[in-house]
């Protein structure tokens, strides 16, 4: 897979910890960028690569948990490795529910952190792959004519051609023709595959 170089973001208010983590990450040949606060991280431009966020829970100003929610609110799905001086159970549970991949207690072992970063980056890659696929499917769907999109909706809803023809006020042969076009344009080999694609695109019966 020809993927872009992954990026590790580190947000910690302690300069020494920030630089130490950055050094560790560089030692395993990963790109790293560090930030002293949540605001700094939010105002930075993020390259379009697989990435993960190593985030201190206790930050001055916007806390780590608040930043996590803020990112979700903007639809940014970056995997997060949390660092904390003292993990209490409710906080950990909340962070994990909101999609944190790991929760490390300071001081942590270097390998623990690098493993967690690795897991987070893999998750990021697979997320990106899924999104890329979805994008492709959307593009294909956009190549369908409005009539073809209507026919596809009827087909994935499990309606027979005759019924679809009646609904659209056209002939069964025309429907069959559209149907063939849909299968071809959406690159679906079978009806079940077309149904799965429709599910991912969240397409339902248009009527």
């Amino acid at each position, binding site marked *: 897979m020809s993927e872009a170089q992954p990026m590790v973001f580190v947000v910690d208010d*302690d300069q*020494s*910890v920030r*630089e*130490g*983590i950055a*050094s*560790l990450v*560089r*030692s*395993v*040949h990963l790109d790293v960028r560090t930030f002293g606060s949540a605001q700094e991280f939010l105002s930075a431009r993020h390259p379009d690569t697989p990435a993960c966020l190593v985030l201190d829970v206790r930050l001055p100003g916007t806390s780590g948990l608040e930043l996590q929610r803020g990112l979700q609110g903007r639809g940014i799905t970056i995997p997060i490795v949390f660092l904390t*001086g*003292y993990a209490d159970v409710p906080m950990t549970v909340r962070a994990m529910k909101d999609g944190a991949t790991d929760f490390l207690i*300071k*001081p*942590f*072992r*270097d390998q623990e*952190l690098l493993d967690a970063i690795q897991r987070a980056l893999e998750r990021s890659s697979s997320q990106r792959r899924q999104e890329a696929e979805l994008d492709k499917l959307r593009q294909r769907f956009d190549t369908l004519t409005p009539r073809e999109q209507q026919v596809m909706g009827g087909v994935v809803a499990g309606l027979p051609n005759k019924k679809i023809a009646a609904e659209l006020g056209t002939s069964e042969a025309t429907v069959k023709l559209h149907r063939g076009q849909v299968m071809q344009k959406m690159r679906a080999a079978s009806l079940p595959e077309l149904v799965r694609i429709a599910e991912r695109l969240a397409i339902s019966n248009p009527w």
Partner: protein
Amino acid sequence: MRREMQPRLSQLRHYGLAVLLVLLAHALVLALDPYLPYPFLLPFFGAVMVGGWLGGLGPGLFAVLLSTLVVDYYFIPPLHTFSISVHDLPYFAAFVISALLAGWLSSARRSAEEALRLARDRLEDRVMERTSELQRTNDALRAEISDRKRAEDALRTTQAELAHVTRAMTMGEIVASIAHEINQPLVGVLTNGDACLRWLDGESVNLDEARDAARRIVRDGNRAREVMAQVRALLKKTDPRKALLDVHRVIEDVLSVVQDEVRRHGISLRFEPALNLPPVMADRVQLQQVLLNLILNGIEAMGSAPAQPRILRIRTHDYEEGEVLIAVDDSGVGVSSRDMDHIFTAFFTTKADGLGMGLSISRSIVEAHGGRLWAISDPGHGATFQFTLPVTFAERPREDA
């Protein structure tokens, strides 16, 4: 005052008395007249003097007047008239002057004595008054002293209670705070240390990266040192406030605080104070903390012991030269010889919810006072925790005075 209360009416009685006395004198003179060659007038002087003495100046002069009239009428020729011949005038005048002098002297003397007695009485009154005033002041003072004593007792008990409550709490808080402050640089040291090793090892050696990481390690080490300096400064600020203390009173204060716990655990408490124990120079609150810690440990040790007489004994002794010994004996589970090596180590505990700080801190406190704290145990049959404190012979005011 009582004398001035007497009614003026009694003055009349004194004039009557003067008349009576003059009559008596006259009778006496008449009775003696047949036996003497000339009239014997001295009884009149007697009447005048007695009248003046008893009745004062007025009745005295009145007696003089009456005597003069009587003498003139009965004894100065021509008899039975009030007229006086020129020949008898000097004699008569001498009589009158003598009588006047006698009456005046007598009454003056009397009034002087009277005034003196009055003054004495007044003095007595005032002395009594002042005495009762002093008594009242004394009572008030005594009440005030006992109030103060009560307040002081209450204060000391409160201090002991405070020591009890804050013992676990402050210790936990201080430990948490220091742990956090030390943890930050520690994370930095470990992270950078790991990174440094990675840059030195393996196929991708990078000395610049390793050097940067090592620099950060040193920087974090210095941060940790600053934290330690602050902790030390904090400890200095809370240097013991030492004063000469009566150890027994401190023990009693602590015992009053743990009374409920002792009762609840069905423990019989015995306090065996030594006679004539010299005072020690110590910080009251810290001494309370040590005692409280040892006593509560003893109570807990007995709480988990199988059924046997639960006895907590606190003894004091005049120990070695210049030292007093305070011992807390319990009949609890005792300390195993394996644990004995660790019980004074910080964070070592045999209790489920113990911090492992009590004995460690107690030992530091005792040693800061120049004493020693150690334990003796008969596993299964109890333990004795005892400490010494040096006796100071410093000329300092006693706090418990």
